[in-house]
């Protein structure tokens, strides 16, 4: 049994000599974890149990990876939790600088990658849970794979963890992780079949906040009414961030007012009357107030006063806090990434990181997995822009199509469990914006036909898209077979030259032929060949679509496996 180590301010820490330069500009007032351990009944430590759990979990993870059953991203945690249910609490308590959690509908991954870039710049050892494992088992995995068979974390000194947490999992995670900082990015409708309605997510969060330690800091988006209202429930320290640049108002920007916006929080949580907006950036994000009861957006502690776009993914943002103003370069496109950066800046300030480290951390951060990630393929640049819910999708489309440059685009729409089985939301996405703005357009994924239909009703000619459903229609195939005509073979033959005219395919299959090929492989081939060398192909996938695109590019040797070379 070892006494739990306290988390000490960085400035009091004995720094490793080679880190001295960076340390000098850091003043990280640590929160003493002893306070917390005093309040909470110390869990009975079974080092033996934890050790066994670590061994079992790591073995399972290694096996799964070796056998290519998957990234091994969560199996280690599942097994370890089976062996020793308190493993997360046991290991998380050993982190010298504790944990930061990030949750919300959109921006979790990018925000935590900004935070980790900043904290690495400070010289901390940053641990994160990997892609797609933002449930409790993913957090468990992240800890278990860094633990030793004696149940101790490997190199837990100077370590801080940043966990992105699934919205609905938050109530289970907060009590076991006991984070120092909890960041809430935003709340939009997402996977209604899995999370339920927006209001039920708020209820989850309110429950989670009850178990948040009082000495933790809450970092909230002031511009999202349902996020900001969480601050009322928390007795401890709360920091808000927001955007003050009024020139970004949807109307002031000359954005056509009829542009469809999905608004998920319309009414005041106190009196249920509708919010009035002085400025609206997108969806329900903006400067709102309730005319009835006077509730209004809290004044942010950290805010962007002026935003200027240098080029597609280089934003120059003036960030102010406590009377100081700094210029920060955000190397990612889109208004939503400004919010992500502000969330990270605020979280870093809550940890008392210096502005220098914040500025250089954000500037040096690279786009993460699928969030603006750049991959070179056959002389073309592939940019992956994950879009998984209406507001996220709308903002990706706005980012891509607002400057009037026609783009090469491949959409991938899947309806696997991790994406949400319900794809109704594509009808809430403003695809009308895409019409006439694409040089070439390909559509793939398990629900390619639905997305193509959506695009058709957005005013895009069917002949202007290449459609790649996952499989041929069986009904059509069997009918063709009876005519002694191998439909499948012809489809395969066509696959190579996907640009053949729809007219030719009509002759072969009158009535129902709408596709140019089948499956993601052919879609990527076609989209790449449609994109002239030297130009950029924008791939906009849903979550599992992103994994599949990545796997496909990995198999072509264009990018490393996503569970390798990350979290370095």
């Amino acid at each position, binding site marked *: 049994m070892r006494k739990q180590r306290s988390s000490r301010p960085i400035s009091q820490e004995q720094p490793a000599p080679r880190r001295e330069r960076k340390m000098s500009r850091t003043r990280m007032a640590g929160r003493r974890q002893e306070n917390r351990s005093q309040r909470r009944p110390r869990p009975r430590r079974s080092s033996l149990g934890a050790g066994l759990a670590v061994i079992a979990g790591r073995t399972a993870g290694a096996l799964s990876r070796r056998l290519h059953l998957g990234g091994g991203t969560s199996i280690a945690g599942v097994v370890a939790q089976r062996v020793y249910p308190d493993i997360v609490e046991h290991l998380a308590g050993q982190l010298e600088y504790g944990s930061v959690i990030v949750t919300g509908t959109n921006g979790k991954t990018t925000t935590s990658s900004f935070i980790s870039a900043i904290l690495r710049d400070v010289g901390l050892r940053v641990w994160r849970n990997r892609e797609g494992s933002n449930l409790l088992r993913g957090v468990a995995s992240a800890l278990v794979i860094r633990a030793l068979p004696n149940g101790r974390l490997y190199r837990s000194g100077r370590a801080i963890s940043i966990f992105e947490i699934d919205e609905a999992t938050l109530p289970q995670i907060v009590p076991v992780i006991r984070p120092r900082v909890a960041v809430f990015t935003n709340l939009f*409708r997402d996977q*209604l*079949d899995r999370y339920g*309605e*927006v*209001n039920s997510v708020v209820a989850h969060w309110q429950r989670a906040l009850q178990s948040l330690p009082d000495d933790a800091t809450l970092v909230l988006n002031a511009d999202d009414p349902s996020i900001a209202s969480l601050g009322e429930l928390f007795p401890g320290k709360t920091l808000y961030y927001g955007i003050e640049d009024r020139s970004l108002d949807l109307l002031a920007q000359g954005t056509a007012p009829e542009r*469809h916006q*999905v*608004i998920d929080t*319309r*009414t005041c949580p106190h009196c*249920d009357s509708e919010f009035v907006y002085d400025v609206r950036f997108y969806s329900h994000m903006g400067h709102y107030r309730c005319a009835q009861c006077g509730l209004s957006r809290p004044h942010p502690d950290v805010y962007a006063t002026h935003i200027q776009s240098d080029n597609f993914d280089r934003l120059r943002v003036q960030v102010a806090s406590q009377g100081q103003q700094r210029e920060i370069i955000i190397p990612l496109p889109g208004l939503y990434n400004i919010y992500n950066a502000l969330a990270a800046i605020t979280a870093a300030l809550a940890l008392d990181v210096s502005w220098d480290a914040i500025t250089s951390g954000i500037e040096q951060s690279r786009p993460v997995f699928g969030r603006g990630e750049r991959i070179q393929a056959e002389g073309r640049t592939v940019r992956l822009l994950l879009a998984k819910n209406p507001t996220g999708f709308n903002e990706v489309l706005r980012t891509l199509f607002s400057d009037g440059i026609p783009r090469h685009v491949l959409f991938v729409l899947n309806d696997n469990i991790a994406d949400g*089985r*319900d*794809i*109704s*939301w*594509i*009808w*809430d996405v403003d695809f009308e914006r895409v019409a006439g703005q694409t040089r070439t357009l390909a559509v793939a994924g398990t629900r390619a*036909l*639905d997305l*193509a*239909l*959506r695009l*058709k*009703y*957005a005013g895009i000619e*069917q002949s202007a898209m290449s*459609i790649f*459903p996952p499989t041929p*229609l*069986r*009904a*059509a195939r*069997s*009918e063709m077979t009876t005519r002694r005509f191998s439909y499948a073979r012809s489809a395969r033959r066509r696959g190579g030259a996907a640009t053949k005219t729809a*007219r030719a395919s*009509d*002759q072969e299959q*009158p*009535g*129902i*032929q*709408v*596709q140019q090929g089948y499956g993601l492989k052919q879609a990527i081939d076609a989209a790449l060949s449609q994109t002239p060398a030297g130009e950029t192909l924008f791939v906009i996938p849903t979550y599992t679509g992103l994994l599949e695109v990545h796997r496909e590019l990995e198999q072509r040797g264009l990018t490393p496996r996503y569970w390798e070379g990350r979290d370095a």
Partner: protein
Amino acid sequence: MTNPFTQPLTLTLGHLYPDQLNLYGDRGNILTLQRRCQLRGITLRVVGLGIGDALAPDEYDLLFIGGGQDKDQGPVAQDLYEIKGIGLWAAIEDDMPVLAVCGGYQLLAHYYRPADGPDMRGLGVFDAWTIHKGPQTSRCIGDVAISWNGSTLVGFENHGGRTYLGTAQPLGRVLKGYGNNAEDRTEGAVYRNAYGTYLHGSLLPKNPHFADHLLTLALRRKYGITHMSTVDEPESPDGLARADSAALHANGSSPLEMHDLEDRELLAPLDDRLEWAAHISMLERLGLHSAAAAALRSHKADPMVQRLRKAQ
């Protein structure tokens, strides 16, 4: 695409509570109706009817009401009952086509009984009621296909409440999925030209025949049968008597194809290959291969498809 009509036709669609009831992509239904009208030279005006707005039945030809969050449904139910109720009843009794999806469907039945709390009173257009049996009963979530009018409708359902029909006719019979209550294999409800259903996804884009059916009902109601007989194949007005589409012709395809033909005379055929490909692929995903084959066959018999084929 040629429009057989020379007179400009206009329809007005009343979209009830577009701000409150818009949760499940039901905007797709509006877009579909708009576009299918536009392609035929019909002007479809969409008017949003929010809380507090009166509903004058003679101003509209078609009504749509979607589903929303539970939180928003309370004020909507009150407004529907107190402000729009009489107008809506008058419109429905006057055979106005109404499409009510999910929450809107529940609001047009007698009542919605939540797991806890007081009943929410509905309009009682459909003799049906909805009970939420509490968090221990699982929600009905998933892809769904139903038989309708000799063909199929496909969509996605996501509802916690279970709806039970009294004397109301169901919209269709569940082929795959849950339907009204996951017990009796009924889905939706029909009263005159009012259709209630749990299918979203959105419903109309992948079910173009149902979209056209609603438009046909609206055109017929507004312009009368005589006006319509100016179209290609003249037909006796009596033959066009409003089809009781509520009636389920379980397997007999002949009366239903008849009905299909009637619809087509009113509306110029469109190139619906993509719509049907999406429809049929959903049937196949649900394992309904014979229904998929039937849908493919009837789609190929479509005059538009024949014309496309001839044009090659």
